[in-house]
């Protein structure tokens, strides 16, 4: 038995046994000084995203997101594009998790629109926004080009995305420019977050800027490399040095 396991169990009972008549214990975790038992419950183990199948996006949605992402972060001499780097896999898993459900947002009503400085008031979750936003995105593409985004030329794709970014091309219900902000934020996250989340394959995003990654000690460099170029071979949280 690990020490920390003790916390939940008999410890609380024992420490307060003489007071049991008034105190019904153990609804929340109680830590008593002098017992030696004060380790936290370890967080759930990390895991590596399994990119072999989709967990939230439909295949069509994934294809469309990939096409958009590859315009936002294209393949070039500086590194692979967003889809190859795993950004769609990244997004798919994020939308399936607490981020996708906006689990931490305050969602109680009344929901009313306020002044810009009062911040976003909508309570649609990112998962819901993607589901709806991608449909409205394609509708807007069809309205302009009479084909799917994936069928546009590179130049058309770029022009169209400028229109979304500025809001000049509007969606039916969502705000197109806000959807663009979400797309851009998420593709950057996928390209630059630790590879265990499904993107940033081969740490391509980190190599782009020379970020060393999951390193916890720069004492040897803080002075010796001050103002100097560092040839970095980045490392991920789960991987080989």
């Amino acid at each position: 038995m690990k020490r920390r396991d003790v916390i939940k169990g008999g410890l609380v009972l024992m420490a307060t046994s003489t007071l049991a008549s008034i105190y019904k214990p153990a609804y929340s975790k109680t830590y008593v000084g002098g017992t030696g038992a004060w380790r936290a419950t370890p967080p759930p183990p990390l895991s590596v995203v399994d990119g072999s199948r989709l967990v939230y996006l439909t295949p069509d949605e994934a294809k469309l997101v990939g096409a958009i992402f590859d315009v936002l972060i294209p393949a070039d001499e500086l590194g692979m594009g967003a889809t190859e780097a795993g950004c769609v896999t990244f997004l798919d898993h994020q939308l399936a998790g607490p981020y996708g459900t906006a689990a931490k947002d305050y969602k109680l009503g009344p929901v009313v629109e306020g002044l810009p400085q009062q911040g976003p008031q909508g309570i649609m979750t990112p998962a819901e926004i993607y589901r709806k936003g991608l449909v409205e995105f394609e509708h807007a593409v069809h309205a302009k080009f009479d084909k799917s985004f994936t069928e546009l030329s590179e130049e058309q794709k770029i022009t169209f995305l400028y229109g979304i970014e500025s809001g000049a091309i509007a969606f039916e219900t969502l705000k197109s420019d806000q959807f663009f902000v979400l797309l851009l934020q998420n593709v950057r996250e996928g390209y630059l977050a630790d590879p265990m989340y499904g993107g940033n394959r081969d740490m391509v995003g980190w190599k782009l800027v020379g970020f060393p990654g999951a390193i916890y000690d720069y004492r040897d460099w803080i002075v010796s490399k001050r103002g100097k170029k560092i040839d970095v071979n980045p490392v991920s949280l789960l991987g080989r040095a």
Partner: protein
Amino acid sequence: MNYKRPKADVVIVGLGWSGSTMAEELTRAGLKVVAIERGAWRDTSTSFPTTRDPDELSGSVRKDILQAPVTETYTVRNKVGQTALPMRKYHNLTLGNNVGGAGTHWAGASWRWLPFDHQPYSHVMQRYGAGQLVDGLILQDWGVTYDDLEPFYDRFEKIAGTSGTAGVINGQRQPGGNPFEGSRTSPYPTPALERSRANVLFAEAATRLGYHPFPVPSAMIGAPYKNALGLNLAPCTYCGYCQLYGCGNWSKSSPNICILPVLMQRPNFTVVTECEVIRINTTPDRKMATGVTFVDSDGNTGEQPADIVITATFTLDNTRLLLLSGISTPYDVASGQGVVGRAFTFQTLSWGFMFFENEYLNPFMNTGALATQIDDFNGDNFDHTGLGFIGGAGIQSLSNQGLPIGMAGLLPQGSPQWGKGWKQAFRKGYQNYAQIQGQGTSFAHREQFLDLDPTYKDRFGQPLLRITFDYNENDRRSGRFIRDKCVEIAREMGATQVGGDSFADRPYSGYTPWDSSHVQGGVVMGEDPRTSVQNRFQQNWDIPNLFVIGASSFPNNAGYNPTVAVGATTLWTAKAIRDLYLKNPGPLVRL
């Protein structure tokens, strides 16, 4: 179901820096202390080990360590007449959600406030007169001076292992430190950290301009240190996973490493975690507090009776708890009468943003408070005659971010935000971006206040706290003045592209990037019960066994981060409880 815990000598609500500091003092004095904390227990090796800590997505992007708005949020409006709306997503107030509070994930800037900051009214009246104050400004002394607090600043630094270079010791100027600081009785416990490239460029430029740069004192430990409580701290490694992260190797001072291991040795200390206090209980005549009522993680309601009630929650929650409990008189903006929620302040931030051409700033080597500062324009360190405002800012080169997602949008002006152009601009900008922060003072104003929201409720159906705040004319004037100084230094640093910003020029928002998380006041201490909730010992004027501690007690905000001032005032109050109150329970100040 309802239940009642055994009575304690003291109940402390919230176990962050102030709560744990207070608990240490009072358990050492032999009192039986029960702390009630909304968050869960966290300790270094289990909760933020180096093996999993360096992860930007879960850290500063998803902000997993923070208290979520779903747990509790605040509504905001700029002025009376507007409808306040809730901050639904993570906002600028980075609240703690665990034992250790925000002290677990904080940036770590560890300031003693200036003597001026504790007695702003006396200083301003003496030097300039009332004509210096813009209309509606509230200015009042704390009832406790820097000299009163010096021993407690000293003690708190020795608990935290603060790193820095002293500027004035026993009235003598010290080389390399802040010449404007209040006189210290001892040097910093650990030496200042090494400087970043940006810090060095800033210091050189500021020196050329005739200013006085010095290393910002910080929670990032400068050398192995055994603190005042016998706990060992390790030196900082500049890993850059700092603000919004727990520290994995005992090198950022926090309640978790500096105090809690000692508390957990004491049988007269208990912390009940994952319980939210919803009310302070009082006798029917409201002359004495009897304990607190909380809701536990299973939704049961519990009561913790105690002889002394100390609330040590986040600034805003301290105010809210008094309002929810009907203790002391709420502030009424129309009449200007009442005290709870009055004298609420924020901070006035100005920035200089810059890009160099061919630098290697290596921004990933940083800490939350790796900064070099000048105080030439802070507090009342310069002559304000003719400037039309009081206060100022600490102006600092701040190397606190190098993580790529957070920097992906920091591009020279005119750069594309996506496509091939973005990749090129980001690649270059990442090594060439630097920033100068002007962390500005904020003084209370009669139209800035806190009260309970009439519409929005928390998960238990209790009203949220409503913030009514906008920058006042004093903020706008000082903000622009400081912005111009930031820009002046940035140009002198040799940056090819320099921009400046004064946030006070726009309406206040809880979402402005780069903005402060420091709100103060609402339950202020002072000399007059008509303008303060508590006396100079942070003891409630009406209820002598109730002490509300933390930055909620400060009637004005400095051009500094508040933590060490919170620590010092906590220790000051702890001594008053130990030496005065316990011997003779009752009001410690009689008018």
